[in-house]
């Protein structure tokens, strides 16, 4: 599903590479934690999958596509198959919960009848039934993140990328979000989550990739946050 072949990335104007010679493969339906200190290359790794950048060297395959040779105008089609969630939620102010989730389908030009059916189902899945007409700022952080997750998965993507989704949330709320991500993963969506949250990684016992100064220093099945 995702393959990195000897991938390095150096940002222009910098001499130190953000990622060095990464080789790995992530299969369909996996749940992967990406851990490492700030500046270790986690965000670069995720952005390469989204084709926000091209690698400086090496090859990346996502969903069978060679990203190095993917045409600029085919990038939107790739992104439709990858849902994204961020630490800061990125919801649209002034739009209700329903509208925020529906936005993800509207901008793809989906018919209204389809939107009316899928959006309530998705809101129900993330556990926000009854809050469709609320504004994002009226919701708690955890609820806002659920809205963002609903928007990310409403199009049924094959991959869900979560960049520190619990970074702004308290531990108890984080557990709820993790249960939700786990449920999405069980629907056959590959989940890749970058995180600093040691408790979560240790509890979930999923595959762990650790980056350190751009190097992949650990790839552990059923791993924990830090090496003991």
């Amino acid at each position: 599903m995702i393959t990195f072949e000897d991938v390095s990335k150096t940002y222009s104007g910098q001499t130190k590479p953000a990622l060095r010679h990464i080789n790995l493969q992530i299969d369909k339906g996996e749940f992967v934690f990406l851990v490492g200190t700030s500046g270790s290359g986690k965000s670069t790794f995720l952005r390469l999958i989204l084709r926000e950048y091209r690698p400086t060297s090496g090859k990346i395959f996502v969903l069978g596509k060679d990203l190095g040779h993917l045409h600029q105008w085919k990038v939107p089609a790739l992104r439709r198959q990858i849902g994204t969630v961020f630490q800061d939620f990125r919801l649209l102010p002034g739009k209700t919960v329903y509208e925020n989730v529906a936005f993800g389908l509207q901008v793809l030009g989906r018919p209204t009848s389809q939107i009316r059916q899928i959006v309530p189902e998705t809101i129900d899945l993330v556990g926000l039934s009854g809050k469709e007409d609320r504004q994002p700022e009226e919701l708690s952080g955890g609820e806002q993140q659920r809205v963002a997750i609903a928007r990310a998965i409403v199009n049924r993507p094959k991959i869900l990328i979560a960049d520190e989704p619990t970074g702004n949330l308290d531990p108890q709320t984080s557990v709820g979000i993790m249960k939700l991500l786990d449920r999405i993963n069980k629907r056959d969506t590959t989940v890749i989550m970058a995180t600093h949250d040691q408790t979560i990684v240790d509890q979930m016992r999923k595959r762990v990739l650790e980056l350190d100064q751009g190097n992949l220093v650990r790839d552990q099945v059923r791993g924990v946050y830090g090496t003991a």
Partner: protein
Amino acid sequence: MRHTFRETWSGLKRNASMTVAVIVTMTVSLTLFGLSVMTFQEVDRVKGRWYDKIEISVFLCTKDSAGTSQSGNCEPGQDTTDVQRDYIRTRLEQNPDVLEVFYESKEDAYQDYRNTYADSPLLDSLTIEQMQDSFRVKLVDPQNYQGVVAEASSLPGVQNVLDLHEVLDPIFSVLNGLKWGTMGMAVLLLAAAMLQIGNTIRMSAFTRRREIGIMRLVGASNIYIMLPFVLEALFAGVVSTILSAAALLGSYEFLIERNAKVSIQALPWITWTDAWMAVGLVAVVAVVLSIVPTLITTRRYLRV
């Protein structure tokens, strides 16, 4: 589609004052551009009419012509002889640049003058003897006159060679200056309008950068993201086109159709077809003018 139109409309409302400024600048510059197009058409028309009619007049000697500063190739106190006259005709007819040669005698010239200036008070004092015999030379290509003028001037029995280019060229250089001057100003204003549109759209895109970011994230196509901005610019372009078309057709109706065509009938004037053609060109320029800066400025927000 509904989303696109809603976004376009909200963009226009949000930037109402900028949109008005854009429309004003565009209308003025497009109108000036259209006027300059019409000046081009008019100058070409006048040029075509006059240049086609241009003949070279080769004036022959009279008894009085010698001894003056304009004596040319004349013998003092002599008319051009018949031998010289025939030689001049032969030489002119043999020149490859010459189409036709007519002979106009003193008597013909006198009659022609009487007919043309029937009301002139000078007419009574004019005699046949004051007129000059001449050859009228029609050219194959009126633009190509220097060779014939030079040859005729060198022939014996020729007093003077008059060619209308000497008279018309200064007039046309003024007209040319006028048409390129208006075009230059129009182009400058159009460039200003273009920058203004670019800025307006940039502002509009900036206020919507959150939405744009999310649209890119969920994989909306570039066309979908760009369309509201293109439509927003196109709206300004269409309104400006309508306003400047009204101004152009209005000035054509009042300045040319009702005024110039009535009072200056000697000149050929542009027609409604020309006026509509100018409006068509204005519309094309307006579309290009609104779309190109929009595509350039929004590209930055769409770079993936």
